[in-house]
């Protein structure tokens, strides 16, 4: 059992490309940390640096009170589950799990006991003699987990382990990974680009973008108070609506306390269709409905802000949405018709405000 501490960790490739630009965070003993971010943000690189598969250009990585910068992967007391599982194709399931233990010179009965125990936990006891190619994707996934468990490491490292599974299995394995980690209470670092996976698994969520940490916190805190417009649009699906405002617009909405241009954010689920004006300080938008997506329990409405609404649009467009497009998420399957003009409202305490460059959250 151990904590993992990263201190100002950097990675620069020989070509000069800076993949990790100074990352600090700590994962407490037994905690489940999820690194989430878009492709190419450096999350996998960071995980591989913890594993010892990538060298560390600067900074320190500390596992259980020991700086491991120059320690071989095998000696870091970690176990890793790869995206493609990386099972040894020519070895049986049993040998796949036992291989690492044998290399450490563990006694045969002990290996046997550990493999059997892991097989029991993961319910793969019946396939110990099979080769990986005779297994389904989900079963391979379990074997990869088993290979990690038998080592009884201080830290589990997961590199997008579920992304090769179909959607249904992914959800099932997600729950299982979480249960397993709780039960073994082993520290875990998990890399994913799927924000749903990140939200459901994490004790600590680390949102990364372009080699930097955007925000660290518990999933619900990150959801409730995104630190930047990047986090706001990355966590939550569909993403938060972001509307650029000039200084005048900001003052008009949030009072005199803030005197700068900014970006107004409001989550799709915080908008409701209503012709009534909201409580004081709330937001009203006039939309022309352009598309409807019904997913069953809820419906997404895509609309374009029409001129003459509550807010005037201005130039810049942070976040992912086109500046004039607004998404609303409403329960049930009732929805306005396409082309209809609707009025949507949001309460004052559901509004977020960011600096104009999107890098800073402004308390309002």
């Amino acid at each position, binding site marked *: 059992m151990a904590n993992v501490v990263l201190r100002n960790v950097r990675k620069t490739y020989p070509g000069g490309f800076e993949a990790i630009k100074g990352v600090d965070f700590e994962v407490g003993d037994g905690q489940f940390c999820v690194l989430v971010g878009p492709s190419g943000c450096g999350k996998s690189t960071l995980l591989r640096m913890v*594993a010892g*598969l990538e060298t560390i250009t600067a900074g320190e990585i500390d596992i259980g009170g020991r700086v491991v910068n120059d320690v071989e992967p*095998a000696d870091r007391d970690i176990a890793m589950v790869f995206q493609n599982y990386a099972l040894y194709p*020519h070895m049986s399931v049993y040998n796949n799990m036992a*291989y*690492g233990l044998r*290399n450490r010179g563990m006694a045969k009965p002990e290996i046997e006991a550990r493999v059997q125990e892991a097989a029991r936990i993961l319910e793969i006891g019946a396939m110990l003699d099979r080769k990986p190619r005779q297994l389904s994707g989900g079963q391979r996934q379990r074997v990869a987990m088993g*290979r990690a468990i038998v080592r009884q490491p201080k830290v589990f490292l997961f590199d997008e382990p579920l992304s090769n599974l179909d959607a249904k299995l992914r959800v099932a394995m997600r729950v299982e990974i979480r249960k397993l980690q709780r039960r073994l209470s082993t520290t875990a670092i998990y890399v994913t680009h799927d924000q749903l996976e990140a939200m459901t698994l994490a004790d600590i969520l680390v949102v990364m973008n372009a080699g930097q940490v955007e925000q660290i916190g518990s999933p619900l805190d990150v959801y409730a108070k995104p630190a930047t417009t990047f986090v706001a649009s990355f966590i939550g699906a569909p993403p938060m609506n972001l509307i650029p405002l000039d200084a005048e617009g900001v003052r008009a909405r949030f009072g005199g306390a803030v005197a700068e241009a900014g970006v107004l954010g409001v989550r799709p689920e915080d908008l409701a269709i209503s012709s009534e004006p909201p409580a004081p300080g709330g937001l009203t938008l006039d939309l022309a409905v352009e598309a409807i997506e019904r997913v069953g329990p809820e419906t997404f409405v895509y609309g374009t802000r029409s001129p003459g609404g509550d807010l005037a649009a201005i130039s810049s467009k942070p976040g992912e949405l086109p500046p004039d497009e607004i998404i609303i998420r409403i329960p049930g399957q009732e929805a306005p018709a396409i082309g209809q003009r609707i009025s949507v409202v949001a309460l004052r305490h559901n509004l977020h405000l960011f600096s104009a460059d999107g890098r800073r959250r402004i308390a309002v």
Partner: protein
Amino acid sequence: MVEHRKFGNLLPHLVLWTGILIVAFPVYIAFVASTQDNATIANGQMSLLPGGHFLETYYKTLFVGTSGTTREPVGTMLFNSFVMAMMIAVGKIAISLISAYAIVYFRFPFRMTIFWLIFITLMLPVEVRIYPTYKIVADLHLLDSYAGLTLPLIASATATLLFRQFFMTVPDELLEASRIDGAGPFRFFWDTLLPLSRTNMAALFVILFILGWNQYLWPLLITTRDDMQTIQIGIRKMIVTSDALTEWPVVMATAILAMLPPVAVVVLMQKLFVRGLVETEK
């Protein structure tokens, strides 16, 4: 392309059977000749049916040899050829595996230079460098030895390239998983890479064994003693052009015997051979 015509299979079969006959007929004639007595063949009265001298001729060929030109029995030649072909095939595979491993998995100065040097040797087959190679082997006193027969033929750019290509298709994660599992470079090579290369090695073995078996020019230069000669040289020596009488049954029996080991290797390893050439699953 699947066609359902009544005689749709007739033409392909005709073509295939014609091909088989063209290839097989001379072999059959050789076999028939090896079972007849020499006088019949010399008279030009050979029938197309096997004669009655099968056991007699093959016993003489394998254990006694011809009465004149080659004093060694074909058994010795078969043994020499077999040792040479085995050493070449196994040696080539071993050395190529190791050099491909170094080139693919290790970062060292002038790695690409070395790779290209190996690549360039493809343009220098034995025939081109035969004089310097002979000189070196002679200076090392390796004439008339198995080492002299095989060592110069062992270094192989082709096999190195083949293994390099194969190693590059092995996912990096396997290496990384091995590192985390505490396997060093040697263990990774032995425990993971070699078993994965098994079918490739088998395919290569078949090709290289036949290549080694069919060597003619190099053994001709390097061996002078009768007890070191290979079967390919032996056959050639049996065919006498001067006034002595060529013992055709023995020559034909030797030719048949010379064909058997490569055929055996292909038949025995056919399954692995085909898998090695077509397999993509990792």
